[in-house]
């Protein structure tokens, strides 16, 4: 042990914060603490679809903290190594997501593509470059040079203008509408032009659309996002969309709509015949590796193995939840002036988590939770279902079919409530 466990505790607090992203520490790719096995099966499906179909349009949904963005980053990394042109569009950073129109979404995609083209040392056809240039000139009202640098800069300028001001956004949308020009057309010709590089557009952040707007965008009468563009694309969508009654119509437009949900790491195997679950050693070891990847650079021995096991069970397989529990355990260890993170710290953190569930408890949850516990099924009950999934009261797993289970703190809460009632 180094003389200052506090410095290590501090480092642990940082890497286990729910808003910490391993890739922020890495120069390229998803970062050293990404554990590919976490989503191996799911990832294999996505990658197969992209390999086989250059025009695949895929959706990606999942409970908060299950690793959607991390997965996309890792896929982008692999595709680039294969020589494909990948535009990773972080809509959140580039647009005003709470009022996202298709115009800005496609502008952001174009900006990212142009930047990628520049970096890959590819050139655009003269026709496409001229089309982009004249369109931007018209929209910005100032001259734009025909080279890639200038086009990229102009796109970024346009984006930031419409991000800042609702007024300008509406004005631009009006202009586009009046010109009879479809926002996706420009992106489509750009992607056409790049066809030989097998372009893939990863739109991350659509899951941050407010639920109502997400419903309008995907299930309304308008054109579905990205469907009419050539090339491959993956779009993250809010999990609430999956539970809309008309969601299955999307399977005509998106190749994987039937299995769009990225499940939690499966801590349990469900035997559908006996309707019983058994701890999955494989799932536990994936979670263990996730912890190790973050702890090892700091001090491999500082977190006791029993503590890790306890935290894994407590997390129910949700990666962000696992991080949160471990962070709280570090604080507990610090308060009791310990030098290691021990099982008792994790148990205390889980108890806190249980209390926080207790405060958010709503009597309507009870029948649904009990059904999950008994039958591992979550019946669509509108608001309640969404709240339970979003609040991580219920964890969604998949082997073949989707099934559900309760994380440890919720189990504890239910048991306590039964004891009082009994």
């Amino acid at each position, binding site marked *: 042990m180094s003389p200052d466990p506090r410095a290590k505790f501090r480092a642990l*607090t940082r890497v286990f*914060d729910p808003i910490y992203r391993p890739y922020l520490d890495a120069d390229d790719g998803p970062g050293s603490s990404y554990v590919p096995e976490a989503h191996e099966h799911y990832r294999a499906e996505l990658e197969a679809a992209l390999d086989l179909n250059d025009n695949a349009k895929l959706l990606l949904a999942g409970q*908060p903290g299950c690793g959607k963005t991390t997965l996309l980053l890792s896929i982008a990394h692999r595709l680039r190594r294969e020589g494909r042109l990948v535009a990773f569009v972080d809509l959140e950073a580039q647009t005003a997501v*709470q009022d996202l129109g298709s115009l800005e979404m496609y502008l952001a995609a174009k900006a990212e593509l142009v930047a990628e083209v520049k970096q890959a040392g590819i050139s655009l056809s003269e026709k496409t470059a001229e089309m982009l240039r004249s369109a931007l000139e018209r929209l910005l009202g100032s001259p734009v040079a025909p080279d890639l640098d200038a086009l990229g800069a102009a796109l970024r300028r346009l984006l930031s203008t419409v991000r800042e001001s609702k007024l300008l956004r509406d004005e631009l949308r009006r202009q586009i509408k009046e010109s009879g020009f479809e926002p996706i057309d420009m992106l489509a010709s750009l992607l056409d032009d790049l066809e030989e590089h097998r372009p893939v557009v990863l739109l991350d952040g659509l899951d*941050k659309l407010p639920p109502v707007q997400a419903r309008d965008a995907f299930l309304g009468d308008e054109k579905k996002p990205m469907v009419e563009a050539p090339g491959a694309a993956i779009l993250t969508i809010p999990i609430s969309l999956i539970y809309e009654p008309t969601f299955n119509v999307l399977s005509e437009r998106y190749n994987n709509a039937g299995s769009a949900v990225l499940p939690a790491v499966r801590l349990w195997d469900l035997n559908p015949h006996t309707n019983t679950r058994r701890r999955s050693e494989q799932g536990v070891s994936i979670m263990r590796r996730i912890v190790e990847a973050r702890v090892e650079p700091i001090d491999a021995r500082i977190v006791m193995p029993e503590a890790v096991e306890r935290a894994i069970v407590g997390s129910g397989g949700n990666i*962000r939840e696992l991080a*949160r529990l471990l962070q709280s355990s570090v604080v507990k260890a610090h308060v009791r002036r310990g030098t290691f993170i021990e099982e008792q710290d994790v148990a205390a953190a889980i108890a806190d988590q249980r209390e926080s569930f207790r405060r958010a408890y709503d009597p309507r949850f009870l029948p649904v939770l009990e059904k999950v516990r008994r039958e591992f099924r979550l019946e669509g009950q509108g608001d309640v279902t969404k*709240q339970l999934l979003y*609040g991580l009261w219920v964890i969604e797993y998949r082997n073949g079919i989707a099934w559900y289970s309760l994380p440890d703190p919720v189990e504890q809460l239910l048991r306590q409530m039964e004891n009082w009632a009994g």
Partner: protein
Amino acid sequence: MTPEARIEELSARISLAQGSPSLLVVVAESDATLDEARRLLVGILQRAPMRVEDLGACDVDMGPARWVELTHERAADAYVLSAAPWGPFSGGAFAGLLNAEREFLRRLAGPVLLVVSRETERILRQKAPDFFTWAARTYELPAPAELVAIARKLGALPERAPGVPSEEPPIRFLHLSDLHLRPQRVKRYDQDRVLRGLVDFLEQDRDRFPLDLIFVTGDLAHSGKPEEFELVVDLFRRILEVTGVEPTHFFVVPGNHDVDRDVGRWLRRTLDKDEEAIAFFEDEHARRFHAQKLEAYRAVLAPLLGEDRALGLGVGANAVEVVTVRGVRIAVASFNSAFFAQGDDDHGKLWLGEPNVDRAGDRISDEGAQAAIALMHHPFEELHELERDIIEQRFERLFDLVLRGHMHQPKSRGIASQRGGFVELAAPSAYQGSPWPNGCLLGELRPRSGKVRITPYTYTSGADPWVLDTKVFPDDARDGYTHTFSVPEKKRTPSVLRRHLAQATEEAVEAAPEAVQRQVAKVLGIEAPSSRMSKEVAKKVARAAAAKVDDPALLANVVDERRMSTALSKTAADELEAGGPTRIPRSDPQFLEKALGRVAEFIHRKVRGKVAKDAFREGMLSPLIAAALSHVVDGIVFVPSLHDPALRPYILIGNANEEPAVRSVIDVQLLRRAGDVAPRKLDEVERHLQTGEVAHGALVVVHTGEGNEEPRIEHEKTPAGRDILVLHLFW
């Protein structure tokens, strides 16, 4: 975890998270105390060796993107901000913003503590679930009182700028009036829609923060019939359910539509003289028939709200109820202005009764209530002209708030007068049919800072039909169409002192030369005959003067020193003897200090400020203190100067043949100005101590200059080096 352990853990967590972005949600009890909670929390966290920056209250259009900027503008180890989106609508918008901008949290300069109320937390969990899972942890703050205790223990009570009133949690009340409920065939749907909307509105409002008190100022029913009161009880029961207010905190008075006019037809229509009013309001027997007009009203409300409740049926002390809300004692006087209500020609025929208001006032003063609220149905203008002005003036002395109804018009005014003053609030009709305005008032009373904030609501058609009424306070757009009134400070004189002063005044006026009597009559607005004043007229003037005993000018100019001293001595006797602790035995070596302590307490609480500084003279000091001492110490107390005016007005405890150890000498001194340290008159004390016959000496200094401090006792030495006690009293 105990509250302190939670705070300790929170502090430990931020100290670990220093410099790395992290979000912690801190949940406080309610939006009403949010700012205070945030300030206390900042104060507590700053006790640890950390720099904690208070980012203040965050606007609802200010999300994580702005937080990033704010945290990068100031270097600190942790940042605290609070957010109180107002109502479900902006709560939803705020949640949307947080959810959308959550990616920005990764760019924070350090850990941010977001302080929200429990209600906001609920909205965020529901409407910003993703944002919520990004929080490292949710901490529940201890209750406000506990938080203050923790802060005090750590020496972290934030300093307040002088003169700025401290943040005081408000006492929230609902004021309803004029419901006019009746079984309706045609308009039933309309009545249901308006009132169900009201109940829904109150249910939603409870989520913001719960109501403490509910007032309904009359006209619950339409013609005082039992079947109408059934509807009233149903509605009140629903209101009690959704607001969670206890029945004892729900106050009702009757209006002219609550009396059964069939019963009233045979009864006296009004009173014609003061004497009749005294008889009517002093004697329960005299009121028994008029009380029957309200039998249907009583029969349903008493079982719902409590059999021993005032409900506007009690008179005098029985009209007053005292409730405690978060440690604040609030007196509510429920007056029945409808004793003589009978039809449309009530104007000028109604009586509230001076004795009724006076006895109620005595009870309020003696209860030591920090706020007093009067309820009545009618406006002052409807009262009989003989009592109208007097009642209003009495109210100015007694009440902070006067709530009424009757006119179906919201009307509010603040009155400040030489007597004090009140804020009068007339609620609109809560139901008079949807084509006409229907409304209610929500108030927040802060007794310590003397403020009451009124938010008017009105019924509109629509999904959430009860909305803020912008027409009542159109000039207060900036404050969200709510208005804050100042409540003038009150000096409520305890009944014992007032009784004795009134007697002294009456005697003094009666015994005064005719010129003085005429002067007093003029001041009181009593017409005196130009010829010689008869005994009867003099008596009347004296009685009127006695009733005005709270008027400092009258006391100072009319009542002589001797009568005033007598009144004060009698007050000391009554107050100190009434169930007080047993007398201090003089065998106790500290008996003098203990006795002076009790005397100081009595004067400070029961006399000070009630007798104006100008009316108080040095000659009254020894008799007052001697009288008080004589009820506190076991043994004889006397003032030699009362028999020999040539002597200084010192006080002796114990007589000459007793042991020196049980004898004391006390001199008194009046200081008119602060810092006026005239040579202390210790000669008498010194002389007595020197003789060796008296072992204890003290000096009582009464300061009538500026300063409003608590009394204190100091140990000092005389010029000759003897130990004496000095009691400082501030008038």
